[in-house]
C-alpha cells in the first residue's frame, strides 16, 4: 500500500549546509565564474574560425583572402556573446529528504546549495535563471525565469522553504508537470540542470529528461546521492524501506553489497548513455562532497 504524498513529506534536514544564502555564495565564489561562450555563431566581435562555404551563406563573411590564396571558399565565423537561461530542476520527492549518518545534510539541501550557487553564478554572468521542482508537494512552487539580484533572492527563498515530499513512482505525471513547462518554454541555448538522486523516478524518466536537449538546449543531470546510497555501509541484516514506492527489503548487507553497487552502477550507466546520446552529461556526486567541486563540474560541463 502506498502512502499518500502528504504523509511522506518530510521537513528538510539542512544540517551543515545551512544557511543556504551564505553557503551558496561561498560555493559560487569558489567557482571561476567567467562568461561562457555563446552557442550561436555568426556576427560578433571575436573571430571564431573558418568553415567550408555552404550555399546560402551570407556572402559578407566570405574570406576573400583565403579564396585568393587557397582557391577555396571559406566562410569566416565570429562568436557572439549572449545570455543563456539557466533552468534548474530540483527533485524534491520524498527520497530527496534522506540524510544518512555520513552526510552533512539531506540530499535536497545539498541540491539546493548547488542550485543556488549555480543561480548566483548565472545571474552574475547576466543570465536569467528559473527553478522547477519535481514533487515537493503543492506548496512548493518554482521560480519563473528571470534575471538580476532579485531573481537570486527569490530562488534562495524558494529553496529554503522547500520540503521533500511526493512519490514519483506513484504519481507518474509529477515528472511531466515539472518538465513540460521547460520543454515548451526554454529558449534555444538554455542550460537545464537536473538535480536528482535518479532513484525513484518513473520508468522512462531518463529519455524524457534527455529529450529536453533538443533545440540547442543543454541538459546536465547531477545525480545527488547520500553516502549511504553510494556505498551501502550498513552491516549485518537490515530491513530497508524505500521512501517512495513502499518497498521493504530485508537483507544481509554484507552479502548483497556488491550486487547493490553493481545495480547502482548499471542505473548510472543507463542514464549516462541516454544523456550522452542527446548531448547531455551525467555528473555524479555525494552529499558528503564539497559542493564547489559539483558546481565547478556543472560549469565545466556547460561551458
Amino acid at each position: 500500500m502506498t502512502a499518500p504524498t502528504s504523509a511522506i513529506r518530510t521537513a528538510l534536514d539542512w544540517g551543515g549546509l545551512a544557511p543556504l544564502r551564505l553557503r551558496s555564495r561561498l560555493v559560487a565564489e569558489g567557482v571561476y565564474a567567467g562568461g561562457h561562450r555563446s552557442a550561436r555563431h555568426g556576427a560578433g566581435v571575436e573571430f571564431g574560425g573558418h568553415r567550408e562555404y555552404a550555399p546560402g551563406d551570407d556572402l559578407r563573411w566570405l574570406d576573400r583572402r583565403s579564396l585568393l590564396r587557397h582557391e577555396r571558399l571559406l566562410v569566416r565565423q565570429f562568436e557572439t556573446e549572449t545570455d543563456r537561461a539557466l533552468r534548474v530542476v530540483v527533485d524534491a520527492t520524498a527520497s530527496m529528504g534522506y540524510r544518512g549518518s555520513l552526510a552533512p545534510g539531506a540530499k535536497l539541501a545539498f541540491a539546493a546549495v548547488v542550485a543556488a550557487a549555480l543561480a548566483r553564478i548565472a545571474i552574475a554572468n547576466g543570465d536569467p535563471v528559473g527553478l522547477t521542482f519535481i514533487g515537493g508537494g503543492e506548496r512548493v512552487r518554482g521560480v519563473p525565469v528571470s534575471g538580476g539580484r532579485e531573481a537570486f533572492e527569490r530562488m534562495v527563498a524558494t529553496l529554503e522553504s522547500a520540503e521533500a515530499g511526493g512519490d514519483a513512482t506513484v504519481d507518474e505525471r509529477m515528472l511531466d508537470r515539472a518538465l513540460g513547462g521547460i520543454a515548451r518554454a526554454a529558449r534555444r541555448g538554455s542550460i537545464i540542470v537536473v538535480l536528482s538522486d535518479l532513484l525513484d523516478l518513473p520508468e522512462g524518466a531518463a529519455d524524457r529528461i534527455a529529450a529536453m536537449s533538443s533545440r540547442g538546449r543543454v541538459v546536465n543531470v547531477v545525480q545527488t546521492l547520500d553516502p549511504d546510497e553510494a556505498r551501502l555501509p550498513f552491516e549485518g541484516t537490515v530491513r530497508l524501506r524505500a521512501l517512495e514506492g513502499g518497498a521493504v527489503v530485508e537483507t544481509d548487507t554484507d552479502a548483497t553489497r556488491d550486487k547493490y553497487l553493481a545495480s547502482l552502477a548499471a542505473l548510472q550507466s543507463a542514464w549516462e548513455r541516454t544523456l550522452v546520446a542527446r548531448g547531455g552529461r551525467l555528473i555524479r556526486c555525494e552529499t558528503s562532497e564539497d559542493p564547489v567541486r559539483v558546481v565547478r563540474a556543472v560549469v565545466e560541463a556547460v561551458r
Partner: protein
Amino acid sequence: MSFVTVLGLAVALFVAVPYLAHRLRRRRADERPFAAAHLVPPAPPRARRRSRLEDRSLFALRAAAVVALALLGASPLIRCSRLSLSREGGASVALAIVVDDSMSMRAAFGSGSGTRFERALRGARELVGSAREGDAIAIVLAGAPARVALAATSDLGAARGALDAIGQSDRSTDLDGAIAMARALVAQLPQVDRRVVVLSDLADGKPDAPQLGSDPSAPLWVALPELRGDAADCGILAADRASLRVRVTIACGHGATTAGREVTLRIGDKILARAAAPAGNGGDVTLTLTADAPDGLVARLEGTDAIAQDDEALVVAEAAAPAVAVIADSAEEAAATGGAPIVEQALAALRLDVALRPIPAVPERASDLQGFVGVIADDPPGFTPEQRAALAEFLEQGGEALIALGPRAAAAPLGATLEPVLAHAVGWGEMKAKGARQAGAVAALSDAERSLEELGAHASAKLAPEDASAFTTLLSWDDGTPLVARRAIGRGGAWIVTLPFAVGTSDLTLRPGFLTLLDAWTDEARALAVPLRIDVGQPWTFASGADLAVEGPRGPLAITRDGSLARVAPPLVGAYRVVLAGNAQTRVAAPIAAEMDLRPRAISPSAAHGALGDTHAAVDASWAVALFLLALVFAELVIRVERARRPQAAT
C-alpha cells in the same frame, strides 16, 4: 530443603536470561529508510539463518550451563531418593540384605509403574552401590524356604551379579527364617558394624505375629516403607476335576471378596463353563462340564485384583490327601473289643496325615490304586494275575506295600502267588525265636526292638532263600531270620512282616513297636509319593530321579540330588511338565493362601526409623556437575571456532 539450597536452585531461574538475550538478538532487523531499496537484492539472509541456528545451539548450551551452575551451587545439599548406608566413622560394614521374592511382592508398587519386588531389587542395587571397598555383602531371599542367594563376600561385583540373577517367585514368605539366616551370615564377619536390611512388604500372612526387629542384639532396618500397604487379592488354590465336575477352591486375603466376580473354565480363549464366584472371603465352586470336555482346562477367576498370577490355575485330576489302602479280614483281625481291624485302629491312633481306605482286596486295575500312597495287606491269600499286574505297576510308579505274611499267605491257592513282592511260595511253621533281636535294627525301627520281645508267637512265615536274599532285613528275630524286611521294586518298595496282624497269632499288633513300624512305613510311603499338586516353593521328591527333567513356566528347573533322591522346588505358580524315566506328567504348583493376605507385619520402631541407612541419601554430585559444566564450555568453544571458520570457507 534449606534456604541455601533454594537459593542455589533459584540461580536456575537465570536460565531465562540467555533465552531473553536470544530473543532480543533474534528480534526483527533494524528497519532503515533507504531510497534505493529496490536496488538491493532481496537475497535470503543467509547469515541471519546461520546465526539463528548457532544461536539455538548456543542458547541450549548456555541454558544448560546456567542450570549446571545452579546445581553446582546446591550440589552439596542435593538429595536424591535412593537407599544408601549411613556410616559412623567410615568403618566397613557387614550388610545382609533380605530380599523378599514371595508372591505378595507381585503387587503393584506406588502408582502402578512397577511391582514391589522390582522396587525391592532396585533398593538392593542401590544399597550395593553405596557399599565401599571392605564392606561385606550377603543376600538372602525371603521366599519360603528362605535361601541364601549370596554368601557374605566383599566382592561387590559378585553382589551385583547375584542381584541380577534373582527373579520373582510365587513362594510364601519366611521373613523370620530369612532374617535369622541373614544374621547368621554376618555374625562371624570381622566387621564390627553388622546390619540386616529387609526389603519386603512384610506380608507373610502373619500380621499378628510379634514385631520384627525387636531383637536388640542384631541391628535390623526395614527399609522402603512404601512397599508396605494392604491390598485386596483373591486367587485360585486348586482346581480339581472328577469326571465332569470341576471343583475350584478360591481363597481371599484379608478384606478381599470375590463378590461380583466369576469363575470360568477355558481351553485357550474358549470358555467352556462359568459360574459366579462364591460370595464372601473365598470358598469352593463346582462347575459342570460337557461329556466332550478335553483335558488341559484352565480355571480363571475373572476380574482384577492385586496379584494376577494367582487368578489362574490348571485343572488337574482330583487329588485328595494321601491315602493308604488297608486290606484286612475284619473277622479275624478285629480286636476282642470289636470295631475296625486292629491295623486300622493303629493307623488311626497314630493320627498321621493320611486317609485310611479299607478295601476288600487288592484292586485288579492299576488306576484304582491311583491316589494311594501305600497298600497294607494282612496275610493275603496270594494275588491273582490281574492283582499282581496292578500291584506291580503301583510299586513301579512309587507306591509302597506292607505285606503281613501268615498262614493264609502260605496256603495260597493254585495260580495265586505273592508276586511281585515275593517270587516264591511262603511257608508257615513253628519257630524257636521268642521275639525281635535287640540289636541290628535300622534306625527307624530301633525304638521297636525292646517292645517286640517275647511276642508270644509260635510260628512265623518262612521265606524261600532266594526271596530272603532279595530283601533287606530291617528288624530280625532273635534267631536271625527276618521279622521286618524291605525290597525296592521300581520307584517304590515292599515291606514284609513275617507275622500276620491277627491278635490270635502273636502280640505283635499289641506292642508299641507295631506303631513304630507303621509310622516308619507310612513316612516312607509318603516320601515316595509325589503329589500331583504341591504348594509353590515346596519340593517334589522323587525316589529315583536319575532320569528326571522338569520344565516350568520359566524353563527347565534345577534338580537337587541327594543320593538316589531328586528334589525339585517349583518357584512359580503354574503347570510343570515332569518327565521321569520317559514318562511325561503335568504337575501343578499352587499358590499359598497366606500370600493373599497383604497386611504387613508390624515392625519395631528401631527397625523402622532407619538409623542404619537413609532413604534420602545426600549425594555429592558436584564432581559430575562440574565435569558437565566443563563439557558445556568446551562445546561452546567448538561451536564458536566452527562459526568463525564458516565465513572463511564461504570465501
